[in-house]
């Protein structure tokens, strides 16, 4: 399976990544080669084998319902680009842009 330039542009758009046409060409090749590598697995016969949800076959450990985190807003916001009134400020996202 190989990815076309249009596929890559679409994925980049979904992830809101700005990509030049030269980059698109590079990534098309690199992503395609990853997919081709993984595709080898399709050759294995998996009839009658239950799909694996995770490579480690144990169940999820669970924690008790306790509040263990304290307020660290000041520390987190010290490294944020812009904050105001306790809020993180980000460029406006207008739907359907």
């Amino acid at each position, binding site marked *: 399976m190989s990815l076309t330039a249009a596929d890559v542009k679409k994925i980049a*758009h979904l992830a809101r990544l700005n990509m030049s046409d030269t980059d698109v060409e590079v990534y098309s090749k690199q992503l395609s080669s990853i997919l081709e590598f993984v595709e080898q697995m399709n050759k294995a016969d998996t009839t009658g084998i239950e799909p694996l*949800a995770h490579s480690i076959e144990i169940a999820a450990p669970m924690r008790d319902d306790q509040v263990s985190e304290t307020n660290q807003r000041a520390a987190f916001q010290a490294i944020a680009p812009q904050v105001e009134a306790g809020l*993180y400020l980000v460029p406006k996202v207008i739907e359907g842009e």
Partner: protein
Amino acid sequence: MEWETVIGLEIHAQLLTKSKIFSGASTAFGAEPNTQACAVDLGFPGILPVLNKEVVHMAIKFGLGVGAEIAAKSVFARKNYFYPDLPKGYQISQYELPIVGKGHLDVQLEDGTMKRINITRAHLEEDAGKSLHEDFHGLSGIDLNRAGTPLLEIVSEPDMRSAKEAVAYLKSIHSLVRYLEICDGNMQEGSFRCDANVSVRRKGDSKYGTRTELKNINSFRYVEKAINYEIERQIALIESGGKVTQETRLFDPAKNETRPMRSKEEANDYRYFPDPDLLPVAVTEEMIKTIRDELPELPHQKRQRFMEQYGLSAYDADVLVSSRALAAYFETVVEESGASAKLATNWIMGDLSAALNKENLEITESPVTTAQLAKLLQRIEDDTISGKIAKTVFEALWNKEGDVDHIIEKHGLKQVTDSSAIEKLVEKIIADNPEQVTDYRSGKDKLFGYFVGQAMKASGGKINPQQLNELLKKKLSA
């Protein structure tokens, strides 16, 4: 042309946990922005989610409450989309293998009949943060306190055929999650929200019409209004030769209309895949059994019992079991007073509910205690006061004037049951109204009510009505 409406609901119930689904941050409502958003909720590099056990228990509780299959193994998946209030770039949800499978809920409709609404699935997921679009110098403000709050998304089959049915189903789920104590059901604060998928088709068609998804409906009244508006819009559109577009629409309560949301481009391309950070969730038979043993009596079971044990109508039973606290209030009053269930029902659903509604109070906040109402009912049944006077006593109870006997004593409300006193009054009224007496005796039966009114007025409503009726009849026909 006859049209049929097809409605399915997606309900998001915020689970009543202390901490978030994958982090130890608090879920308390109303905190200062971002004070309850930890590194996991903020999506910092290197963070790992750890599942909250209580969230799994609550989902199982719900599943058992709707007779659903509980998956022995369920899997968390990443739902990928870009939005600033979703810092990781994906929402952790469940996709192919949800924790709760097919179930159903029997819902009582307005006419008293029952309808079974099938539930497709219910899955666990995390909530996103909140974007505030007020002007921050052309920027948006993000509050991530809500990010990571556990949600149970309950998806119904498209089984509802009118807005009223959809509301009845929504109310039943609302009541169920509160009985199970897994969600506080607060629609204003957004802890119980609903999206409606609505389509119309010509009656008899087997294929569904194109549906629209209605969002932003945060009260039972709005659900009904939004759906009804949408039904009319779709029918008018098709009848004028148009076509319904599959889209998401927002309900605007101020204008009472729905309008299309500006569509996020390729919004449905979520590229779900199993979250490699989370292992499959295993639910054992033993866990299910423990939870099943701890389940409270559920609304539909209680409704059935109230009808059998107290002889209540389906409607009365339905209203009383709508909240666990209301049902408990009713049962306590009946038990403490020894009064008839019908009398207790009438008072709770009548005067008490009206007073609570007027002041926007919950039953748990009622100024009139169960013991006080029970005493009031006893005083009605033992003829100390009439039903009419009881309303005056109730008002005094509401205004915290003290206990029932004290109020009756203080205001001199005790019913007159002394026959000689009543007889005297009746004789006076007959003497004072010779014209009416003549008319009555010549066949104007309706005037009887006039005499009763006069007697009640003269006594301040304190005469025992049965005794008065008997004596009046006797004296007037003499």
